[in-house]
């Protein structure tokens, strides 16, 4: 289990680095899919099978398909770095260090040592209970958010 975790984690990190460093957009998109799938593996190891497969279905199977399609339609080949990327490098480097430090520190403090966390109850029924009982408001309000997005897509794409 632990070995699997490290494999998935390392694959995820390497692929994520690839997403950023890769110059060809299609490769970036494909590597992002790899990241998402390795995250799914980690969910699986945590015992959250439902979340894992939903992650694959929704992100890898639906959202990223649109990304890849758009990249293909634009026929985007290799990128050449412009002026903006220089600024990004200046700003991005320090920010990266700071964020990384924060995450590492937070994780370090949270690390309980001996006591292992209680087993996760992440089956479909438990998640359904959470979504429709405790978190019913954010859940329903998110549907308004999606409605707005759909409405926007229709408005902006409609033939006038």
């Amino acid at each position, binding site marked *: 289990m632990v070995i699997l975790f490290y494999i998935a984690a390392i694959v995820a990190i390497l692929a994520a680095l690839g997403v950023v460093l890769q110059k060809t957009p299609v490769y970036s998109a494909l590597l992002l899919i790899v990241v998402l799938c390795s995250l799914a593996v980690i969910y699986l190891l945590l015992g959250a099978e439902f979340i894992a497969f939903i992650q694959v279905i929704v992100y890898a199977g639906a959202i990223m398909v649109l990304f890849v399609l758009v990249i293909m339609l634009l026929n985007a080949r290799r990128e050449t770095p412009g002026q903006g990327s220089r600024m990004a490098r200046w700003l991005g480097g320090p920010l990266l260090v700071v964020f990384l430090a924060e995450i590492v520190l*937070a994780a370090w403090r949270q690390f309980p040592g001996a006591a292992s966390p209680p087993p996760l109850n992440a089956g479909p029924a438990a998640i359904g209970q959470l979504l429709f009982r405790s978190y019913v408001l954010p859940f329903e309000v998110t549907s308004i958010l999606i409605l707005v997005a759909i409405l926007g897509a229709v408005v*902006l794409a409609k033939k006038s």
Partner: protein
Amino acid sequence: MTPVQALDFIRVLPEIVLASCAILVMVAEPFVSARHTAALAWVSLIGIVAAGAGNAWMRRFSGPAFGGSIAADPFASYFVYLLLLAAALTLLGSVRYLETNQVHHGEFYALLLLGTTGACLMVAATELIMIFIGLEISSISTYILAGFRRADKRSNEACLKYFLLGSFATAFLLYGIAFIYGLTGTTNLVQLSEKLSAPGARPPLLWIALILAFVGLGFKVSTVPFHIWTPDVYQGAPAPVTAFLSVAPKAAAFAVILRVFLGGLASAGALVFWLLWISALLTMCLGNLAALWQTNIKRLLAYSAIAHAGYVLVGMAAAKAAGPEAGEGIASVLFYLAAYALMNVAAFILVAHLAGAGERYQEADDCTGLAYQRPGVAACLTLLLVSLSGFPATAGFFAKFYVFRAAIHAHLIGLTLVAVLNSVVAVYYYLRVVVAMYMREGNPRASASPLPWPLGAALALSLVGIFYLGLFPTPFVRLANLAASPLP
């Protein structure tokens, strides 16, 4: 968590009414014949009024809802009224605009209502995830509204810029929220405040999370240096949309800043204070200075809106500096936002009318001699600009007065001095438009057609409000004080 009860739904009644009304408008649109599309506006208006009535009725049931993710308190109630007012004025101002510019009605009103819904959720939310979802709803609606005149290049530019930079800023906010959750283990503001005020419970590097969240929210209220999108978006978006987005999302974001930085994260005192202080200083000065060079009225009002955000931040810094007596500062901010909403929405919807079909005439010079052709319209615009600049007897005056008084009480003498100087500078650019209208002869290119009655009604309503606040501020101040009470 306790199971959801009917009471929980009553406490989000305005949002439910608004969203239902939006869906009704959207579904009804295909069935309404082209000649009667204005009917959709009246349906929307009824929805807004009903939401207001719901908000009033709800006062009897105040309290937290949905496991503490929403609070139906006087603070939320105050802001909901304010947002509904902004939405109603925008609606009245856009009925004829949509007809002359041939914009689709149904989607416009639906998005307006949904945007208001999102903003209402933001002000009532006491949980970071709810705040985020509300913010996204209001943001995405306004992104789309900004691009509503699809044939117009500027509108497209506005839409795209607003969307790209807005998404970027939202990512910052989300990053901040994620860090806050990672460091404290909660997203609920009440629990957050408890956890952080416990002795020795300050997680390290919380300041990074704070700054990230502040950047995200700072974008929404266009504080310097996160204001770069504002002039282009305000200028390019259809003028009634500008009216809405310069007020509703901004006021809601200010409410969130109050709730988060003076409520949940209050214990991170000094950092928050300096963030507010520096933002206030930069925002006031840059907004006013840049406004001096503008010839385009929409752009001018955009920079003026930035400057006003600066004054609001002064009030917030005052509230933060006052410690336990934050009430005065918060109340001054609330008063300011109400005055600002009345003035700004009215100014932009009037500009929408003046600019004519296709918004061709946005320059100050286009108004040359307007006073001789349309004295009523010119007088109206003059009053609004005068109030924006903060002349006595108008809402703008007392708004500034209360903010400055709170700042002085909090011993922020330097900041107050800068703010007063700024208000003096601001008079110059507001009056330049007035001068063009009254002092110069010539034929105004701006639309000289009579005011359509919905717009007239909206303007009359705002002017009454402006003078009411300017002449009899005391009852309203009492209201603002009441609304400020739920925050520490």
